[in-house]
């Protein structure tokens, strides 16, 4: 890669190096070794952090995590091993207190569809439209079991997060009433195989419905309180 470069700068550098006193030469030599080791270690850790679980990473998992987290995490999913093949829409409905004092339940609002509409014909989609709800739902899925039981702090944090996003989108007043409780569900629809494929895909929409959540003032982010 560097063969074509003239040698003069190297010779000059070699001369400068040779002109140094012995202690300085030692400092430089030790530094060369240290940088080489550090770079090799760092790239080795980087490799192990993206490689599948293997003999080394199983043996030294704790040390690797200690090195990689929190600042050198690599979360490039990049559509591998398979690209996402389903649309997951998050929908919400509310139980509201009507002005006459009664309780009513609203219809389902498709919040992801609002995101989709905001992304449509938008050359620079915002993270609020493309990532906020989508990744909040991933967070929820990763911190709950199939019975919607949260695992630890992360689980309850993710519920709180979803509630606050939902309240931001619905607003504290909806359909002419004050929101008392909200319910969230995900609607998952498999994308049909391309038209040239003879593969049959079940494109029915499947719902995962979460329990009703009572909303409090702590569920109202800025923008939801007017």
């Amino acid at each position, binding site marked *: 890669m560097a063969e074509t470069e003239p040698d003069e700068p190297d010779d000059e550098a070699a001369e400068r190096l040779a002109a140094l006193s012995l202690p300085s030469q030692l400092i430089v030599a030790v530094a060369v070794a240290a940088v080489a080791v550090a770079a090799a270690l760092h790239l080795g850790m980087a490799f192990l952090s993206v490689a599948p679980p293997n003999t080394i990473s199983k043996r030294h998992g704790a040390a690797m995590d200690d090195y990689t987290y929190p600042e050198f995490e690599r979360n490039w999913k990049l559509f591998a091993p398979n690209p*996402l093949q389903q649309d997951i829409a998050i929908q919400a409905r509310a139980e509201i207190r009507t002005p006459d004092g009664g309780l009513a339940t609203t219809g389902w609002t498709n919040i992801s569809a609002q995101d989709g509409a905001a992304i449509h014909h938008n050359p620079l989609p*915002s993270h609020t439209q493309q990532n906020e709800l989508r990744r909040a739902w991933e967070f929820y899925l990763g911190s709950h079991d199939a019975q919607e039981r949260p695992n630890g702090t992360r689980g309850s944090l993710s519920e709180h997060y979803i509630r606050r996003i939902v309240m931001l989108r619905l607003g504290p007043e909806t359909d002419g009433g004050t929101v008392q409780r909200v319910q969230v569900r995900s609607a998952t629809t498999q994308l049909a195989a391309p038209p040239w494929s003879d593969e049959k895909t079940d494109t029915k929409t499947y719902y995962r419905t979460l329990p009703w959540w009572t909303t409090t003032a702590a569920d109202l982010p800025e923008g939801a309180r007017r």
Partner: protein
Amino acid sequence: MTISAVQTALVRVQAAMARGHARVTGTALGPHQTAVVRIGFSFTWLLFLLREWPHRRELYGPDGPWSWDMARQLIDGNRAFTALMWSDSGLWFETVYALALVSALLLLLGWRTRTMSVLFMLGVLSLQNRSIFLGDGGDNLIHLMSLYLVLTRCGQVWSLDARRAARRPDGQEPPRDTTGIVLWTVLGLALAWVQLFTDAGLSPIADGPLPGLGWATILWGLWLIQGGWWLARRYAPGEPRTVLDMLANLAHNGALVVIMGEVCLLYASAGWYKVQGSRWQDGTALYYPLHLDYFSPWPSLADALASSGTLVMLLTYGTVIVQVAFPFTLLNRRAKNAMLVLLMLEHIGIAVALGLPFFSLAAIAADAVFLPTAFLLWTVRKATRARDRLAARTVRLPRQRAGEHDERPDDEKPAPTLTG
């Protein structure tokens, strides 16, 4: 093999090692490539911060959906760095966001590049670590590169720093540099204030980016090095200055190798995992993301692209082949350049078709570390000429323009490079 052959080989290895030793200490390699990486990532982050300006409080503000208290609970567990956790006031948040914006702009321009690279990193970490459930692959890449850029001498060319240095006649004493002293003092005081009067709790050995290395050590260390550098330049122009310069070159070259390795790893791992995916195998993978609600800003474009099964298949296979092959093509300059063109074209396609402009910009900025010096110089010459022509046409100030031509010979100096 005879003994003399072994001896010749040994001598050769020794000579090569001496040459390598001289090269990595004597020069900061790839000055144009690291400058492009600096410009690319600061531009991407700057554009992102400007684009999200109306949404900044929802994304990172103390009372956004991911509130300050919720972030506190998570960060108590993962110990990530974010200045936004030092106070839950809205004013502090606005200050940090503004500082992130300004430091990105100044790093882009290469004004006080060393200092700005640190502030840029702190801005990136502060915002991203504050709301970790908002980012995507592009944010992740900016996060990593902002850390590496701190160690690279990325302002050697195409920066205000380089222009200032070029204006100083050779052999002249380094100036006192009042601006630098003020900046250094202000930042030292700011860091002292953070340590003494906020809840930051920067530790010397814990909770840093690397095991055993806390943020207090890193930030105070960088601050002291900056001060030492100034002292050595001014009062110890002989050996101490040479040694410091060599150590800086070493850090730069080490970081450059890490940046290159990281980019190779990014593509290689993406490729290796794709090879295992059934959709990448049957040649339909690209069809799917083009039709996801969250990634299809231009449905008619996606439909046009996906109208031909053969085209989708070729693009799908091409993507995997390019990604898997990329690190190996570095062994051959022409193959490497061809791969770079393909990768950049693909990222431009992703920017538009999947609505991921910031991710794509970040990826292109990372790829740029492998661009050939000759190409970079050619681009800049073209751009400068176009700018001059435009300027000459709009404002007729020939004298002022003539003054700027002085820098050009400096840009065209042959520069040592790792990538050819």
